């Protein structure tokens, strides 16, 4: 027995540390970045109209609302949970905003009410998961339908609009030639990357996702962290809903239908591990741009939408295989 233990110990001791270049290069974000560069080159060759920064930035405003929410979703997935209700939360919080504004509330108050709706929806998801210990995938599939249904009750089959002119068209407001929603996205990326990478809470999110039981024993307030993340999802969704309302200058109950899958796609393409414990904001950031480049590049090259869907699906599968392979390789 003793000998065997020693052998095992010996093998472990003798394993070489991974060379530095591997630590730096063999990671999912590098794959995402390579795909991004590749997609950009291909898109530039497909159509002479593609490589125009102003056009790409303008096109990115159609996806950036999802990207912002995908950043927060990255934290949720790293913590070992998932939230499939953000698109429905976007719709409901935007419908609350529009309905209240139409009922005569000042627009500022209507926006605050929309954010509060986001908090409540996230809290509801979080309580079901944390207090009632239900699997988050089931809970949020349920609330996805619930929130969308409430949005339809509230807004009916019509679109609500006629907002004041200053509220509309935030995607056309530029700061240093960059649309405002893109700036919001970049700022939130930096803030979340800093939180995840440098703060205690950030490290704890990784630990919770790696092993919830070990985290509890280590004294991490797992339930508080998870509840906080679900509430953050609600707030981010509400921000996304308001940005969309401003971009479209109108709100409908079916806003962002199916958007949750795009968000999950961004997080997965960015190399975040679906079972939790691994992933990064940088990956999701790069993957958001990858999706923008692919969708925009193929649309401007007049490639049929069916082909676009095939490319997206294939990419997702490739990225999941690659992510799993990389993580298996670096598992120690």
């Amino acid at each position, binding site marked *: 027995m003793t000998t065997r233990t020693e052998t095992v110990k010996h093998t472990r001791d003798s394993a070489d540390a991974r060379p530095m270049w591997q630590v730096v290069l063999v990671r999912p974000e590098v794959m995402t970045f390579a795909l991004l560069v590749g997609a950009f080159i291909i898109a530039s060759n497909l159509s002479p109209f593609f490589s125009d920064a102003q056009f790409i930035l303008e*096109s990115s405003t159609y996806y950036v609302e999802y990207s912002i929410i995908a950043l927060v979703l990255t934290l949720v997935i790293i913590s070992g949970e998932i939230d499939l209700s953000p698109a429905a939360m976007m719709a409901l919080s935007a419908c609350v905003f529009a309905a209240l504004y139409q009922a005569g509330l000042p627009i500022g108050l209507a926006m605050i009410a929309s954010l509060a709706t986001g908090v409540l929806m996230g809290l509801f998801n979080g309580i079901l998961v944390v207090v009632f210990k239900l699997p988050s995938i089931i809970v949020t599939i349920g609330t996805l339908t619930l929130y969308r249904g409430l949005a339809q009750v509230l807004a009916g089959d019509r679109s609500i609009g006629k907002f004041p002119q200053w509220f509309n068209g935030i995607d056309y407001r530029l700061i240093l030639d960059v649309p405002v929603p893109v700036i919001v996205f970049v700022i939130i990326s930096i803030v979340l990357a800093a939180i995840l990478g440098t703060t205690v809470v950030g490290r704890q999110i990784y630990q919770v996702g790696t092993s919830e039981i070990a985290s509890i024993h280590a004294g991490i307030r797992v339930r508080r962290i998870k509840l906080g993340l679900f509430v953050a999802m609600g707030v981010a969704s509400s921000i996304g809903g308001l940005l969309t309302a401003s971009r479209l200058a*109108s709100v409908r109950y079916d806003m962002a*239908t199916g958007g949750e899958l795009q968000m999950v796609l961004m997080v997965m393409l960015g190399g975040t591990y679906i079972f939790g414990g691994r992933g990064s904001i940088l990956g999701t950031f790069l993957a958001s741009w990858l999706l923008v480049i692919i969708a925009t590049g193929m649309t401007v090259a007049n490639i049929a939408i069916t082909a676009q869907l095939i490319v997206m699906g294939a990419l997702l599968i490739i990225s999941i295989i690659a992510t799993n392979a990389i993580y298996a390789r670096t598992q120690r």
Partner: protein
Amino acid sequence: MFKKSLLLGISLSVALISGAALAQDPVSIVYIPKNTGNPYFDSLVAGFEDACKELNCEFTMAAPATAEATSQIPFITAQTQRGVDVIAISPNSPDAMNQVLDRARSRGILVLAVNGDLVDNYEHRDAAILPVDFTKTGPGQIELVGSMIGYKGDIAVLSATTDAPDQNTWIAAMVDSLKTNPKYKDMNLVATVYGDDEPQKSTTEAEALLQTYPDLKGIISPTTVGVAAAAQVIQSAGKADEVKLTGLGTPNQMRPFIKDGTVEAVQALEPL
């Protein structure tokens, strides 16, 4: 008939554009239908192709996957970037595209609403080419279904998407004539449901109508996808005698149902 007006509309646009532009390049036209896989728009595309052959303009078609209200927006941006001269669009929403269409027009692109208009947002397009007199479509269908059910009983509407400007115009006119015309006082519109111009969803909605309203006498489906789906549902339920169906259908899709008696009459909608 519609093809003629399409040809006329396109030639006018071509004339406008080539009058304005000095370059002798052929005028480029892109058509953005509501969604892919909708046979009605295939006929329209063929009409564009014929017209462009005649007028020597460049024609392309770019279609989104769904008829959802915002699905056409990235396509408009991309075509603006391509620098086409004319964007012809069958809008999925009367208002969601206002800003992006304005952007296109500010770059000198002529925007044509085709087959459906930007209701109440007319200032965001340059012109509209409509297949039928829109004010007559709705009342015409009420009359048609009324004549089949003896102007008495419950009817329902199976529409396209909730935001479709053309269908909503027709439905509003139907409701109006039901209310105002004493001839239809015994007819009762019990439900308006939306199949989103997807065969699967339209079928489900049609089945739900038969289930929910057992006394239903008639269904109007003013969209080619919906009317074909509803015909299929009524045929498989064997209810052709109890529930009368009418709507707007392409002749090819409706032929088998008319032949076997499932459907007595539809307004044929094909750009001929």
